[in-house]
């Protein structure tokens, strides 16, 4: 690839040229929060090292998605509202979350067709993160905040320019047929093996990982005390880049019955409520335990990834000050004993 370095001043121009035929999603301000949103005017786009309030999960797995319509003639129509999309400026923690979503929704015997279609049509352009926000703990989750290859293109910040790394064929296709000369930064040469050399050199703290058998974690941890402050509002699951639990909801719209998929949350009592009235997770103790164990034990056992990227969003937004990082550290201490 001839494109190695592009001028920072030219990045928006480049994105405009790339974006033809694609919906462009990037960080922008909305109601005082930096979020991923569709960019219609390039001035809205914010290129920074700031981790947005929300992850870009909703562009692969929307909070509300029309799945299918049943009509009065007895037909069913599958709906597909996916669009070719570029998601720009995704930080390594949010890119890491894609591994979990893909493993659960797009692998195994059954696939989630809506997710798979969106994933196929989406190109992720990753960027590094310069500093940890309060609540961030990606390093303790073993994530390099400066670089990730879990994307299609990665822009490495070199001060006055970005080094463009094309990772997938999909990423490469974005640049095909583009006159790149005007975006190029002056010739620069890079040392070999840059990917390796940019791993953080500072001593990494102990990894937050749970390696115990599920019954041990389930039974030996004082979940009552840990869950005590939880209000069960579910904001942690909505903002989590790896949470993917959902429900189907049928809505009557004129002559149609439309089936929507909506995000659901293990923090809500009705999530597991049986029609009989029985509820296997009837108190917040069981629900909070499920959330932590699903992330750190069950998905890890089934898919091989811990479903927590250390993005810290659940910690920063919790109205009751719940902190998954200290909870997991505490569990590790209990297990060490």
């Amino acid at each position, binding site marked *: 690839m001839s494109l190695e370095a592009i001028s920072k001043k030219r990045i928006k121009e480049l994105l405009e040229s790339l974006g033809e035929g694609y919906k462009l999603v990037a960080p922008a301000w909305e109601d005082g929060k930096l979020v991923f949103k569709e960019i219609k005017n390039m001035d809205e786009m914010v290129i920074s090292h700031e981790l947005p309030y929300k992850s870009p999960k909703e562009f692969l797995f929307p909070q509300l998605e029309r799945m299918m319509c049943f009509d009065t003639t007895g037909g069913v129509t599958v709906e597909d509202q996916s669009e070719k999309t570029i998601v720009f400026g995704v930080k390594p923690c949010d890119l890491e979350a894609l591994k979990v979503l893909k493993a659960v929704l797009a692998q*195994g015997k059954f696939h989630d067709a809506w997710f798979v279609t969106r994933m196929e049509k989406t190109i992720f352009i990753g960027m590094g993160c310069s500093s940890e926000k309060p609540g961030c703990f990606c390093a303790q989750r073993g994530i390099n905040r400066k670089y990730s290859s879990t994307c299609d293109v990665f822009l490495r910040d070199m001060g006055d320019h970005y080094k463009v790394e094309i990772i997938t064929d999909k990423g490469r296709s974005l640049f095909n047929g583009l006159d790149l000369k005007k975006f190029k930064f002056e010739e620069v040469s890079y040392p070999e093996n840059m990917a390796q050399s940019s791993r953080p050199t500072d001593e990494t703290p102990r990894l937050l990982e749970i390696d115990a058998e599920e019954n041990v974690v389930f039974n030996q941890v004082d979940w009552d005390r840990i869950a005590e402050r939880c209000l069960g509002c579910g904001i942690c699951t909505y903002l989590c880049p790896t949470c*993917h639990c959902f429900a189907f909801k049928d809505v009557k719209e004129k002559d149609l019955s439309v*089936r929507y998929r909506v995000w659901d949350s293990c923090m809500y009592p009705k999530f597991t409520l049986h029609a009989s009235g029985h509820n296997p997770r009837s108190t917040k103790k*069981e629900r909070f335990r499920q959330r932590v164990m699903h992330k750190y034990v*069950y998905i890890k056992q089934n898919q091989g990834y811990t479903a927590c990227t250390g993005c810290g969003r659940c910690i920063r937004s919790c109205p009751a000050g719940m902190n998954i990082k200290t909870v997991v550290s505490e569990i590790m201490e209990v297990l060490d004993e």
Partner: protein
Amino acid sequence: MNNSYVPVKAEIIEVIQETSSDVDIKTFKIKLVDDEKMDFLPGQFVELSIPGVGEAPFGFASSPLERNFFELSIKKTGLVTEAVHNLWAGATVWIRGPFGNSFPMEEMEGSNILLIAGGLGLAPLRPLILYMLDESNRDKYGSIQMLLAARSSRDFIYTRDFDQWKEVKNTDIILTIDNPEEGWKGRVGYPHIIVSEMEFDVNNTYAVLCGPPIMIKFVSAKLVELGFPENRIFTTLEMRMTCGVGKCGKCNIGHRYVCIDGPVFNMAQLSQMPDEY
């Protein structure tokens, strides 16, 4: 790619009122449109939709050898079941599946079988019974004993089948109810009490149970006490679920998902799972 969330159209061809008590259980005989065949194994389930109302999982209740139609026995309990109960022969429903694992039909070959069902718990065992009692399969299994329990004599489902089942060689049915009733010729008492009075070779018998959780708990404990190995006691679980295919995150017990790792589990697996989900 096969889209596992999109159901296919089906038609209710018969509705059978199951119990003469006030317990509202009906069996729905259903066929897929365009004479599509339904291939399933005993223990598997489908998701049934009523557009505009919703979708819910139900275990198959008919013979897997009959591929032109299948039956679901449904108790009126929530929104979807109430909507289904208001339907009649000729009505359209939507079906996706089959999903889940099955009873170990091959593993059980050559052994005696003890089936214990409580109330509507007989429904998911019926495909297994009809499969094993079929002429083509009956010789693959040893003796088949059934202990069928219900609250009262009016709460048994599939009573129309019982005489036929009894006629099959080396097959026996014991009926038991919770409290004495005038004219009742069967047994009286909970199944975990009755089972300890039955005779079987614990070294060459598979037990399959289904019923209310409290019944499963007491009966399985009794069977273990009587010497049954845990890996030869099977049951089938139910759990609230949306997708049926391991994505929606609702039906797990520990790392196992009832929809794809179950719904059939043996007691050795269950005793390793966290208790309260």
